[in-house]
């Protein structure tokens, strides 16, 4: 019941933010929601399947570049077309990449995903004519629900229609992921993480299930990447760089990988903490590195792990 109350409050707050909060903080919510979608997918791989990808920014890059190519090269401005196109592009790439990567686990999986991520990064950087090289490409303002929102200034567009559009995508992505992890499919993934041999002996095809999880997480990352591109207005190769992959794993760990909503909390805290730290001290990586080290050593359950601790007491009371 407590979860339901918290969720209702959070949803109401999310709906009300553009009405009450200063525009600056509303625009900070946009990358949060985009990363939220990315992390929901990443955690299916990390938290639920036990595979840590150090190349997942590859799919963020694919999503973002799909948006940029469609809007600035092909004149396709409808976000309702861009998102499925980003998902499709990611699926096409993830199918072979995933099939190769899921044959390995642990450090080898991490290395292989890192290598694939860097292949895409180098491609974006070096094939200047196709991708714009290190300057990247412009992501033009997409239309939402068939309207150009022509009368809106850039900020008004972002804190108004685009905010609610992103929120709707995040809510849909969350509901879908909730269904996925509660389904027999999600349970199989957890079984594989906990005990691979047992899962195999129960007739679960381990590589196939890992591949499914990889595909889903890639599609989520691309949708999030496309959402991320609009507020920035420009996409560049660093989106696919390996440190970006590391940062999103960091976000998941910060929030708590063993909890469904942990990654969303992680994205929220990461974005707002980064903004706060950067406004007083330019070297945010130093602080964040220390935070990450602290979490790894002392609180591997992340922020959700800290909240979750009192729970056994409540259960015994009820």
């Amino acid at each position, binding site marked *: 019941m407590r979860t339901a109350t918290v969720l209702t409050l959070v949803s109401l707050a999310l709906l009300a933010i553009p009405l009450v909060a200063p525009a600056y903080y509303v625009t900070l919510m946009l990358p949060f929601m985009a990363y939220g979608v990315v992390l929901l997918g990443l955690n299916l791989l990390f938290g639920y399947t036990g595979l840590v990808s150090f190349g997942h920014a590859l799919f963020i890059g694919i999503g973002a570049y799909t948006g940029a190519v469609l809007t600035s090269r092909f004149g396709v401005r409808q976000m309702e077309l861009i998102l499925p196109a980003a998902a499709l592009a990611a699926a096409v790439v993830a199918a072979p990449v995933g099939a190769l990567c899921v044959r390995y686990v642990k*450090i080898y999986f991490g290395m292989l995903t890192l290598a694939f991520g860097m*292949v895409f990064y180098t491609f974006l950087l070096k094939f200047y004519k196709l991708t714009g090289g290190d300057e990247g490409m412009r992501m033009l303002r997409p239309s939402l629900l068939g309207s150009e929102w022509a009368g809106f200034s850039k900020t008004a567009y972002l804190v108004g229609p685009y905010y609610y559009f992103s929120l709707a995508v995040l809510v849909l992505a969350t509901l879908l992921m909730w269904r996925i992890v509660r389904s027999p499919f999600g349970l199989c993934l957890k079984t594989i993480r906990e005990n691979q041999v047992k899962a195999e002996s129960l007739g679960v095809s381990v590589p196939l299930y890992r591949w499914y999880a990889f595909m889903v997480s890639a599609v989520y990352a691309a949708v999030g990447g496309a959402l991320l591109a609009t507020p920035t207005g420009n996409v560049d190769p660093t989106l696919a760089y390996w440190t970006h992959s590391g940062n999103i794993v960091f976000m998941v760990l910060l929030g708590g990988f063993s909890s469904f909503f942990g990654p969303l909390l992680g994205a929220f805290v990461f974005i707002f903490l980064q903004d706060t730290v950067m406004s007083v001290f330019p070297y945010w990586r130093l602080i964040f590195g220390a935070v990450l*080290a602290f979490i790894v050593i002392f609180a591997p359950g992340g922020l959700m792990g800290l909240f979750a601790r009192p729970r056994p007491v409540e259960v015994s009371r009820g």
Partner: protein
Amino acid sequence: MTANLVNILMGGVFHAAILFLVAAGLQVVFGVQKIFNLACGSFYALGAYTGVSAVAYFTGHGGPPALFIIPLALGGLAVGLVGVIVERGLLRFVYDRDETFQLLLTFALVLMLEDLIRMTWGTAPVSTGGLYLSYGQAKILGATVPVYNLLVIAASLVIAFGIGWLLTRTAFGRIIRASADNREMAEALGVDMRWVYVRVFTLGSMLGTLGGALVIPATAAMSEMGIELIVEAFAVVVIGGLGSMRGAFVGALVVGILRSVAISVYPELEMLLIYLIVIGVLLWRPRGLFGTAAA
């Protein structure tokens, strides 16, 4: 034609000499502590910046420019002692954890060191100025090669043989190999694993910082140089095989020379080619050319 070929080859071997040092540091740490140290590139950057400062201090206090290689190497080696702090302060807490967390801890180190370098040396590239060619140039089959490059290649070879000697011929080397092979057994036989880990990790970080210091006369130190090098060092150890010194040697030559050839033939391919080879090796032979541990 030959001159051009020799130029490309020597450029590649110089790069390989540097890569070998960093990759050897990565290997020795992975071999014994089973930690894939993403921060080895950051040690490399740290060594580079320290090298620049050490040389500037040396020449600024009247040291003869011709001897700049001495403060350069000493500075690079000295800053490698930061490995003691890193091992005792961070890594020792996670030896019995899942390797995901170990990897993420070294990633935390990457983030911290990158900004520590920016705080200390600023964001603009720094270099040792015109000292690079102070040893002159040598003519090899019609090609002109800076003597400094030859010195670095020789130094790297000496270090490679030194490590080989250390691992196979000394008591400490036997302890390292025993610990890499079977940690519990080594501990049961009375090896103080804490000391082995401190020393091995410091050895690894010193190899990285020395590599960074030695490369710097030929280029300029930039704050991103660490995170860029780690992916190359990573390619070296994947091709050579995780944990193998011989693998680091061969892998460094492969990556160094291929990169040099690709840059002069078809620059767009540069790193792309190397990552494709990495993927090929991981798929066809995940333990690499000389590795023993399979996936």
